[in-house]
């Protein structure tokens, strides 16, 4: 064991404790209030309008491997997928999920199936609602674009690990007249989304999606823990900079 390992484990332990503490507090105050993110407030309305208009909802989970770092935004996308699938199940056109990785495709099918089961409409579920669009980034983008065009998707939610190919998907969504809410952990993708998407999620806002769609109190608690540790990081950075300037470190 070295210092970095101890530091890393301590950080994870503190994070875990903070999540538990905020979870307990959230049960008392109902989760508290989250800062307003315009994208999430407008998405609920867009979902309702899409359902009423008989349009399709499309959610894409990216191409991040489930056993890698890119799995985090994909898992957030899965939580959002399940929540939205319950709402959109009453639409004339069922919701479709696309992904660029095999495990994500399987998990997306399971999430949608779970939503249909909870609504007691399992007979309406079709495994083809969760699709693998492509195995390479551009192949994945090319497989996703027809879903936007041909399936008449009015709302496209892109939550996961995307690269530069997200520009093609966002461009297709704009050309079809649909609304795009997108978020990625990739910095180049975020830069592209700021210019190309209607509702971009910058920074770590993509990780807050599950809390904003009210997936559970623990999601809100983890969001609060993130905020708390962010302040800790700021303090450590300032302290380190000061020590460096002072020549101590």
């Amino acid at each position, binding site marked *: 064991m070295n210092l970095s390992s101890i530091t890393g484990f301590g950080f994870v332990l503190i994070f875990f404790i903070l999540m538990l503490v905020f979870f307990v507090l959230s049960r008392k105050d109902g989760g508290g209030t989250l800062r307003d993110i315009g994208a999430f407030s407008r998405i609920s309305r867009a979902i309702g309008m899409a359902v009423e208009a008989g349009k399709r909802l499309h959610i894409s989970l990216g191409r991040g491997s489930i*056993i890698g770092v890119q799995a985090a935004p994909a898992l957030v996308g899965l939580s959002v997928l399940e929540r939205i699938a319950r709402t959109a199940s009453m639409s004339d056109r069922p919701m479709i999920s696309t992904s660029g990785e095999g495990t994500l495709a399987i998990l997306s099918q399971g999430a949608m199936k779970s939503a249909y089961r909870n609504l007691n409409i399992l007979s309406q579920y079709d495994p083809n609602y969760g699709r*693998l669009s*492509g195995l390479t980034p551009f192949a994945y983008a090319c497989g996703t674009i027809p879903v936007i065009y041909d399936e008449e998707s009015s709302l496209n939610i892109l939550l996961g690990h995307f690269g530069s190919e997200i520009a093609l998907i966002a461009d297709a969504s704009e050309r079809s007249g649909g609304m795009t809410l997108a978020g990625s952990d990739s910095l180049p993708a975020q830069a592209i989304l700021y210019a190309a998407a209607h509702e971009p999620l910058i920074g770590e806002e993509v990780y807050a999606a599950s809390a904003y769609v009210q997936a559970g109190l623990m999601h809100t608690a983890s969001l609060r823990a993130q905020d708390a540790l962010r302040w800790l990081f700021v303090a450590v950075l300032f302290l380190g900079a000061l020590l460096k300037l002072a020549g101590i470190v």
Partner: protein
Amino acid sequence: MKLNLRAPISSSIAIAVGFLVLLGYFFDFGLLTALRRVFLQWAVILAAIAMMVGVANLFAVHWTKIKTWQAGSGYSLILLLSLLITLMVVGFFGPTGSWTLWLFNYIEVPIESSLMAILAIALAYASARLLRRRMNPFSAIFLFTALIVLLATVPILGIELPGLHGPDGIRSLITGIFTVAGARGILLGIVLGTVATALRIIMGIDRPYSE
């Protein structure tokens, strides 16, 4: 009474394995390290199998489109034919065979390069309409920074302007300080979100594997 044991069993496995791998990453004990390595190998194998499952799912989706004569079924037919041909060629000649490389070099790479070119046009279009879509000071700063970096990347009419080009130019200042700082800050936030997501899975809060 029918008991559904799948959910608690799968949750237990997920929580236990995640916890062991996490501990094994921080604490280099004999048994812990060995367990971690075994789990990692299993993960690698499962990832490869998951890719094959994904390919099978891709085949099934497009096959359904062809059977039901949905819109775009022609493209699905081409896709399935290409898939089968590629499988046959690679399976026969090997992954580094000449015909395999020919398919890759003269079909795969040009297609994706063309998509990359389209991406460039889409990015230029999006940049041109940014102020129409989002009229605020941040958008203006975004555009100004992009233009400065682009200008400082290449010589303007063969001339490198001092203060703009070179290691002491504004481009180096932007890319070396501001961009790096902003990127690090965002990455720190992404790390926090990643850890939170992972901990939720280890705690059993998020169960993407359950139906």
